[in-house]
């Protein structure tokens, strides 16, 4: 279980996280929703240690991630996988090099076995015969799926997905949702997903949390969220421009 306690983060004068409290249950899928620019990416970058909070803590099992030494933290990181919003593929490597990279770094598998696993994972995200292409030759949605394959290639216990379906067509989005559900059920992984995709959220989430103005304002099962009368949440879920949230 991951526990986020009163997490605060500002960039200069800009307050992004203003006391986030959230519990992420082991073996469940937690989806964090919220408007663009609310700090969702900033929040998961804190979980994986890319950003340090101004105050507050993140507890994982009985370790305080926010106060750990680099070497111990590296051991924790081996249990995590992450899909970046930008996919963050290495452009000096082929697709196969990218997806196989964590295997090459952290396992004793030979190149042949690595390629086999890579092809299998790529097939799972709907990509065939792309192994030898470079990231520059892929479409935006394809890059994202390569990033997805790379994030899960080590079968990590905890995976952070930053908008896994952005840039995918509706059919591919649903297939990504299926992939998430299948891998999660098979391995009982803990998934933390950031998404604006309401269909994905309602389909896969065990728990939904809404980030608004630097705090988690509502959380619950998809069913609870759907019945929740909070007008901010309602406006977000229904995707209306008019309501308590102003769009300027």
């Amino acid at each position: 279980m991951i526990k986020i306690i009163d997490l605060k983060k500002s960039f200069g004068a800009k307050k992004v996280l203003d006391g986030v409290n959230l519990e992420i249950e082991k073996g469940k899928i937690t989806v964090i929703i919220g408007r663009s620019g609310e700090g969702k990416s900033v929040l998961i970058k804190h979980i994986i240690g890319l950003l340090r909070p101004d105050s507050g803590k993140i507890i994982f099992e009985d370790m305080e991630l926010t106060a750990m030494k680099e070497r111990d933290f590296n051991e924790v990181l081996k249990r995590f996988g992450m899909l970046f919003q930008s996919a963050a593929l290495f452009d000096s490597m082929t697709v196969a090099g990218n997806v196989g990279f964590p295997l090459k770094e952290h396992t004793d598998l030979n190149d042949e076995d690595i390629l086999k696993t890579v092809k299998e994972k790529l097939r799972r995200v709907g990509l065939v015969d792309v192994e030898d292409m470079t990231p520059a030759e892929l479409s935006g949605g394809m890059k994202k799926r390569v990033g997805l394959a790379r994030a899960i290639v080590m079968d990590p216990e905890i995976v952070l997905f930053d908008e896994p379906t952005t840039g995918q067509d509706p059919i591919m989005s649903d297939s990504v949702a299926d992939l998430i559900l299948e891998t999660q059920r098979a391995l009982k992984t803990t998934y933390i997903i950031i998404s604006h995709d309401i269909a994905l959220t309602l389909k896969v989430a065990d728990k939904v949390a809404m980030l608004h103005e630097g705090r988690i304002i509502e959380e619950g099962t998809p069913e609870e969220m759907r019945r929740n009368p909070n007008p901010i949440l309602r406006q977000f879920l229904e995707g209306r421009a008019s309501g308590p949230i102003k769009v300027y």
Partner: protein
Amino acid sequence: MKAYLESIGRSAEAFVATVGSMALMFFQAVMYAFVPPIKFRNIFKQMEFVGVQSLFVVILTGTFTGMVLALQSYNALKRFGAESLVGPSVALSMARELGPVLSGLMVTGRAGSAMATELGTMRVTEQIDALFTMAVNPVKHLVVPRIIAGVCMFPVLTVIADFVGVIGGYMVGVKLLGINAGVYIGRTVDFVQVSDITTGLTKSLVFGLITSLVACYYGYYTMGGAEGVGKSATSSVVLASVLILVSDYLLSSLMS
């Protein structure tokens, strides 16, 4: 006046901070260089990039520098009837000074700027963050191979520059200006000592460290998109070139 002094103070402060974090990166790199697994493949790739791909510019600059040196020293030495000293004059200037400095500056412009650009791009496109999340230390993976390549390949390139410079000098001195070939070579061998060559190589080793470390530092800490990448490349070339010239003076006075 006060504002002026304050701005000087601030720049000095920034400079000290830069040097400090650069030193920190250097110590980290040294530490990780000895922590297994050693990334031979990355190291060779960088050596190829810094060394092999710089051959052309280094040979070109080395040859022409040797030729010009022969021409200039011939004009000067002729006045004392000492044309026979053109050979040693070219060889000494190349080995002690121009071989390491010119190849250092050329490779800084070519490979140093490319290193800063590559790491800078990796920073702004979150590739360095991705390495971190995959439990791969970015300094070990990216910086260490580049510094090793710089420190190993600069001396090699310097030897090549020295060699082609001497040949260029020979061409001009013997073939064009008509100095006796035996005298030219004999005098060169008489005058040039091993210590002249090692002095030059020591310098080039330091220059290799300067260029790779400065380029990695600016690339690694790039901020602000494509514009930031461009700034990192420019700053790294400027700072590395200045440091090469300053350290050249210091090393010359230390080793003379």
